[in-house]
């Protein structure tokens, strides 16, 4: 049995640094490359792309990345777990298999495909059989928006990842598997942890949470002592070094930039946290108030003491539904009286929108440089601001008022307040809003499915 398992985080979200995964597999020894591509809003973006082209709907950046690193993965026997499959894991896996054949690495490569998370075709049946799929935040029943639903995916846990690894997959491509399951899965597989060994599953889950946002655990977006964090240009992404007893260390490759400290890692632990005593995943309920941290060397933090409880009998479901349209228009006003001019322009714009009789669900004005980040808490320097960006955003159920709004920004350059610039981007574009609807479903309703493709 493996002594220490090294799981390297390569992507913290879809759109993360393209160099990171390549460096993770070339700058030092790792056993697994774990890549999380799916934030809550990402599924709805992928769904949009799949609705335009049925062969899409996954993280397209994953393909050129695989083309670049497949030879390294094969030579160093590094396995991959990723939810890059998005709403179309099979298409993603077949595209990777094609690349492997082209690179003549095909014969040795097995790709695991994890599906079963997609509930879209079963929604009416589920609703009819008394699963309300009520919105977790608002309590509204799904029937309120049923006609607009574009995707529905249950969050699967580590179990299907473990199955794919046990069946020999070198690369596991999943749909909506939890971020943490992509890290926990390799640990359960390597250490043969039982699915009811709650403390160990919680430890693997905490490790997953720590590295799932990539460099956010190794010095990126880190507030504490941020100016002295070295060489972020070459930031090393985090690596979990796990042991069979459920303890692990977070570190990074030597010679890379960034920093792994107790304070920085703590920032990542509280990121997107709800009730810390009950971090609920499909695999277990992890207790973040049990975590013990210690600096175990330079750029190395040791985790121990982690406790877990039995998993619940529910899975979270992420639904996406068509909501309406929005657009954002911006203009930049310069000194003197930059903030005053921007406010005057906002008043004029709003009067014109009202005079046109346009019906918006919401109009929001922000003055970037003054209040976009901290609102009324930050108005102290407003009068002296050397420049202010006026940012007006509108939202409506219909496209027409949003479209009309986009034509009301540019005229302000010549027929509004003076000292205005920053319009080179041209007229803003109306954007479709695909909104997120979180819900719960009984675990017994969802069966994960694992296929192995040999390239």
């Amino acid at each position, binding site marked *: 049995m493996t002594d220490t398992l090294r799981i390297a985080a390569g992507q913290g979200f879809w759109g993360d640094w393209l160099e990171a995964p390549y460096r993770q597999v070339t700058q030092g020894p790792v056993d697994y490359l774990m890549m999380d591509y799916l934030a*809550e*809003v990402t599924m*709805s973006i992928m769904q949009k792309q799949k609705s335009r082209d049925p062969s899409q709907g996954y993280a397209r950046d994953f393909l050129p990345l695989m083309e670049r690193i497949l030879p390294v993965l094969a030579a160093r026997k590094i396995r991959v777990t990723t939810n890059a499959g998005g709403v179309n894991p099979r298409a993603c896996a077949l595209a990777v298999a094609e690349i492997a054949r082209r690179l003549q690495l095909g014969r040795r490569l097995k790709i695991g495909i994890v599906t079963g998370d997609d509930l879209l075709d079963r929604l009416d049946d589920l609703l009819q059989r008394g699963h309300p799929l009520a919105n*977790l*935040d608002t309590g509204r029943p799904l029937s309120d928006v049923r006609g607009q639903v574009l995707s529905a995916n249950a969050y699967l846990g580590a179990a299907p990842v473990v199955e794919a690894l046990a069946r020999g997959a070198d690369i596991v491509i999943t749909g909506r598997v939890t971020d943490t399951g992509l890290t926990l899965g390799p640990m359960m597989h390597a250490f043969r942890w039982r699915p009811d060994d709650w403390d160990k599953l919680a430890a693997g889950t905490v490790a997953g949470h720590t590295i799932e946002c990539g460099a956010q655990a190794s010095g990126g*977006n880190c*507030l*504490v002592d941020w100016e002295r964090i070295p060489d972020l240009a070459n930031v090393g992404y985090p690596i979990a070094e796990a042991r069979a007893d459920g303890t692990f260390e977070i570190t990074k490759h030597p010679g890379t930039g960034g920093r792994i400290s107790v*304070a920085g890692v*703590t*920032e*990542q*632990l*509280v*990121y*997107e*946290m*709800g*009730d*810390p*005593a009950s971090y609920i995943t499909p695999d277990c309920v992890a207790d*973040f*108030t*049990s*975590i*013990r*941290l210690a600096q175990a060397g330079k750029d190395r933090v040791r985790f121990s003491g982690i406790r877990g409880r039995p998993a619940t009998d529910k899975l979270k479901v992420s639904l996406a539904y068509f*909501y309406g349209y*929005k657009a*954002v228009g911006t203009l930049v006003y310069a000194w003197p009286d930059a903030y005053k001019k921007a406010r005057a322009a906002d008043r004029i714009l709003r009067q014109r929108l009202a005079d046109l009789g346009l019906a918006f669900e*919401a109009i*929001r004005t*922000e003055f*970037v440089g003054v209040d*976009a*980040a*901290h*609102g*009324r*808490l*930050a108005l102290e320097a407003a009068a002296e601001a050397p420049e202010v960006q006026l*940012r007006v*955003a*509108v*939202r409506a159920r219909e496209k027409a008022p949003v479209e009309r709004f986009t034509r009301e920004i540019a005229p302000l350059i010549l027929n509004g307040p003076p000292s205005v610039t920053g319009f080179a981007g041209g007229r803003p574009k109306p954007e479709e*809003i*695909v*909104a*997120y609807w*979180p819900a719960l479903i009984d675990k017994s309703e969802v069966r994960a499915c694992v296929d192995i493709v040999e390239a």
Partner: protein
Amino acid sequence: MRGHRRSVKKARAPRLVPLVELAHARSGDKGDTANVGLIAKRPADYELLRRQVTAARVARHFKGLIEGPVERFELPNLHALNFLLHGALDGGGTVSLKTDAQGKVFSTALLRLAIPVAR
């Protein structure tokens, strides 16, 4: 004698210290809720944060900027508090019209809060 006078003054008026001097923070989103994890820079200050940075005080700080209530959770092991700011993100995610639709800078907005600290 000067030392004596200073200690009398100390006892009378606690000074207001902005959290940015005592803590660091990171924030993120869950739907229309923003979470802010507030972490004591020095472990010894955790107890001060726990006493002074109450859910009620944080709700007053963000009045007008968020629409829902504030919940607080304690992580003494990490010298941290976790706040959930409900109704903070104009609907959240793709619906939100905010620049900070994902609640990324509620962290430093909380660090503007000043709390009384005994001299």
